């Protein structure tokens, strides 16, 4: 059994975004990209744990993005993934979640993919749609909001824990399957320095997007972003000066009662 983890490079969480000259998206210039941290790291971690438990033989990583996305793939390799594939986009290439899933599926289809893992959503556009769209394009079931994967039940199946508004579900699913992870069972590991050095020697293939596109029966349908605005700067914060905590509490309570009228 082999797993494929889809990862997306996103700007670091504390980046200061600017609108791109096109006005349609944010400007990638000068941003530092990381692996879509927490979400995708959790997906990689989960796959590695299954491999360590002997349930999976190999963990492959695939990413769709510009050449610099290599850093995110390398990070996953340093965490312990076996090999990486980067579907390299060119300048100006932009894909919506459906098209992204279509392209990823085109690449994933060519190799073993018993378990396809994605993070719950991307840290930048937050659409959370690629997982389900991947299931559609691969023609296999997909499950979202998963909080744990374990190897139980008949062979060729996995046990998933799923979090819903109504409560927690435990499902037995047969493979192959796409799983979108809400969170992992364990904090993602930090790659150690020796593993970063070792990851340099692991295979990482750059595949030009044209090759993937050529394999698709039809060009991916896509929406195009038209306009992108940054949130308006926040106003209205008011600083309350105080000498000691009890005075602070007193002043805050008065403001909440008399001005905000929430008490």
């Amino acid at each position: 059994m082999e797993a494929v983890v889809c990862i997306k490079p996103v700007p670091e969480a504390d980046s200061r975004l600017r609108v791109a000259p096109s006005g349609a998206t944010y400007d990638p210039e000068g941003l530092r990209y990381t692996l879509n941290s927490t979400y995708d790291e959790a997906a990689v971690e989960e796959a590695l744990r299954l491999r360590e438990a002997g349930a999976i033989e190999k963990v492959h990583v695939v990413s769709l993005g510009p050449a610099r996305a290599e850093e995110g793939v390398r990070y996953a390799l340093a965490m312990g993934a076996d090999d990486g594939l980067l579907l390299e986009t060119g300048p100006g290439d932009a894909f919506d979640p459906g098209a992204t899933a279509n392209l990823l599926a085109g690449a994933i289809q060519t190799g073993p993919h018993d378990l396809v893992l994605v993070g719950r959503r991307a840290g930048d556009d937050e659409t959370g749609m690629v997982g389900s769209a991947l299931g559609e394009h691969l023609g296999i079931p997909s499950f979202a909001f998963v909080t744990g994967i374990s190897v139980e039940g008949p062979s060729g199946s996995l046990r998933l824990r799923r979090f819903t508004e109504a409560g927690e579900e435990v499902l037995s699913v047969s493979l192959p399957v796409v799983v979108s992870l809400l969170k992992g069972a364990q904090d993602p590991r930090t790659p150690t320095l020796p593993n970063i050095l070792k990851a340099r020697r692991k295979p990482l293939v750059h595949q030009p997007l044209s090759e993937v596109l050529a394999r698709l029966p039809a060009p991916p349908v896509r929406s195009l972003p038209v306009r992108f605005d940054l949130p308006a700067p926040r106003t209205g914060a008011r600083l309350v000066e105080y000498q000691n905590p009890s005075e602070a509490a007193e002043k805050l309570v008065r403001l909440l009662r008399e001005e905000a009228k929430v008490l």
Partner: protein
Amino acid sequence: MPISFDLTPEQRELQGLASKFAREEMTPRAAECDRTGRFPEEVYRRAWELGLMNLNVPAEYGGSGLPLLDQCLITEELASACGGMTTSILANCLALQPINLGGSPEQRERFLKPFCSEYRLASFALTEPGGGSDAGALKTRAIREGDSYLLTGQKCFITNAPQASLYTVFATVDPEKKHAGITAFVVPRETPGVSLGREEDKLGQRASSTATVTLERARVPLQNRLGGEGEGFKLAMATLDSTRTPIGALAVGIARAALEHASRYALQRSSFGVPIAQHQAIATKLGTMVQELEASRLLTWLSAWMVDQGKRATLESSVAKCYASDSAMHICDEAIQIFGGYGYMRDYPVEKLLRDAKLCQIYEGANEIQRLVIAREYLRRFS
């Protein structure tokens, strides 16, 4: 190879690892350890687990054997979170370097491997109460007795001494011979006759520990002598030649933190109706600080690059260490000034940076000595 200032993807990853570690493990404890002087063993242990210690130990002994430039990139990131913790993390490199450089293959196997297979600390013990700058005049005696030596003397200001399991000690077999009598030994902590003084209470870098090590007829087997009798002085100098550059990077890290704090503050604090960054007196301060920081970083990179190319870098490493540490002091001083009264308060981060930066002008060869070395090296070109 043409010069390039582009870091490789691998270098960026190492930098990323160090910066993540600094942000997650060091920053949250920096103020507390500064206040209490606590030695945050959990941070050092985690640094070891991630491979951020013993950066200079060759891969064949289980280390990562990183080029010096990569070591400097890591050091700057760590030091931007806490100078003191960085000193304690780097101390292993300093202590193990004489073994790297002067040890026989058997000694390297015996002494270096344990540091890579488990978390352990080592100390470099050169300085004595009677003087640090004039290392050729050190007084600790090594008297040969059969196939061992008896070491007697005192080593002071030794980083990580209270926690170290091994010391690299420099002693003289004959004080008459001055430099030519100095010999290096590896002294395990449990050796009878080795004792520790109380931990020093320091101005800055308080997360690091510093203490005196006293040797009282401590018996060290011949197999623990690094190189021959009289080869110790050269070994100590060669060690410091390669560890001086990371001290420059350490100073750059502290200075960078000060400059970043000062920049953010200058944009946010207003006086006379505008952010203080718009007053020219503050803007020109920042302009000078940026120049000093950039120059310091480039000097450390140059020096590290020369060492990595196998070139002699005595002048460059002294320039890097001296300039970066003097600049760090100036940058931290100006950062406090930009913070005004708040800068003087312990609740704000910049006064700690000044206290931490000060040490960089003193240890691993005081800056006065660096200037003498630089002038001597430079003047050789004219004679």
